[in-house]
């Protein structure tokens, strides 16, 4: 997996416009939550090979699992309307709830983190995740949120199929 593919994959799985639309917090709080999420992603990536060894699965099998999860995630993002802004802990505590969890640190992001780390390395994962999560902190005009969500969700479905095929047919 190239760094470029990792970047596109992380942007698609984060789906910055959709996540931003869910958050009522200010940009500094969202940025802090994104940094927190990046740390968790990097930690998972660092543990990536150990984790799949512990689960007794190979990298290609993980890719198949990631592909299935992303396909479902992409379809859900594509079909469901943008969520409304939720309530969360006020102040910087909001960086943890709801920004870090449950909005940004999601199961599909965790799976992708492990898979990208195993396939492309921790460096590529960190760069890609920093870009994807960083985009959440960039304010998006309301009128762009819906089309950007459609683009990200569609890209996610395409990448899910790519991951599936790559996993199934890997040596």
């Amino acid at each position, binding site marked *: 997996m190239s760094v470029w593919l990792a970047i596109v994959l992380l942007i698609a799985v984060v789906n910055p416009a959709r996540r931003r639309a869910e958050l009522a917090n200010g940009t500094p709080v969202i940025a802090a939550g994104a940094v927190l999420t990046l740390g968790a992603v990097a930690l998972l990536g660092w543990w990536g090979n150990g984790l799949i060894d512990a689960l007794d*699965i190979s990298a290609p*099998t993980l890719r*198949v699992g990631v592909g*299935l999860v992303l396909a479902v995630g992409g379809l859900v993002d594509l079909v469901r309307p943008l969520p409304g802004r939720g309530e969360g802990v006020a102040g910087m505590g909001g960086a943890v709830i709801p920004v870090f969890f449950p909005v940004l640190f999601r*199961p599909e992001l965790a799976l992708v983190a492990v898979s990208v780390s195993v396939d492309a390395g921790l460096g590529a994962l960190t760069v890609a995740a920093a870009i994807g999560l960083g985009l959440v902190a960039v304010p998006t005009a309301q009128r762009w949120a819906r089309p950007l969500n459609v683009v990200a969700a569609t890209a996610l479905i395409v990448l899910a199929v790519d991951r599936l095929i790559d996993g*199934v047919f*890997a*040596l």
Partner: protein
Amino acid sequence: MAFLVGLRLLILQPERCGTVTAQEVRAAALATVGWLTVNQADDGEWLYRYDAPAGEDLGGYNITRHAGLTLSLYQAAAEGLADALATADRGSSWLSERLVEAGGGVTVDEPGASTVPVGASALWAVALAERRFLTGEDDFDDVLRGLGTFLASQVEDNGAVAERWDRRDDAPVAGRYSVFYTGEAYFALARLERVFPGEGFGPVADRVGHYLATERDDAEDRFPPVSDHWAAYGLAETASWRGLSATEQEYAVRLGEIFGPQIRYASQRTESWFTHRTRGRQTLGAGLGTLGEGTTSLWTITQLEGDVGGLEAAAERSHCVAGLLVERQIDAVEAREFQDPERVAGAWFQFGVTQMDDQQHTLSALLRTLPILEAGT
């Protein structure tokens, strides 16, 4: 969360490859040579099919598998395993008694049949070449050239290989092709080019190789594409005397894409109720062995050509197959539970039955994993 649990249970099932050492692999191979030595009649014929719980010889025979087993034993002899050379030579004697003139050369005849399959001739040619590499003796050179000439006579202009030879017409049977004989003929002809460079076997091998790489699956209406370990052997053999073309390298990568998923799937199968229903029963020893032969051949290509299209992963896949084979082999202690332990120890069984080729492909796969383990890759 329920989705992730379902994913783990149904898709991300554990791959139980285990870890094996070169010593364990060698010991497993030696036990198989033991089975083949004990279960060989004086005339060189092996026990073909055996039901262990019933203690019953199920009869039958197959000359192509006989030739393949002879090859596996010469491979074992090349690794220095005791008794392998003598046992293989008895297998060769059995085959040499069945030689008849065919196609300007010689073939291994199948008594009583009006047409003769080419597979036995191909695999025995490879086996005799293996013997020649090992011993340096040229006793069988005339036979080798004769088998090569016969095989070349079975190759059509586009590289397709006629499955059978018609004794009455001394000609290939038109329009019939085998799933595996084409790859076996490719392997044999490529090896004969290494043994007798410049005597004309190489261009014929190349023609067959090109057909396998570009046409075979479509022309012979084979879907899914053939999991052809013999073609992988042939590519590795070809790479030993010239660089592979881009088309051949692409074919090697495609073969890897066929072997890989099968190995992962096979490694997820256990004897548990749950995996029986979600993955099916464990595959035949022969089936698993062919996958190991395939991946070890792809690994050989990487040793000659570098990492072509990610083929270096073949090392890890080969480890996995060897681990599964060692785990599933019946050892001497387990064999004591059966009526006739000598017919069980060192073999692989499915539903209590073993067949000659269960030992053939597994033995070759184990032996060919040894250099990978010894190289530390």
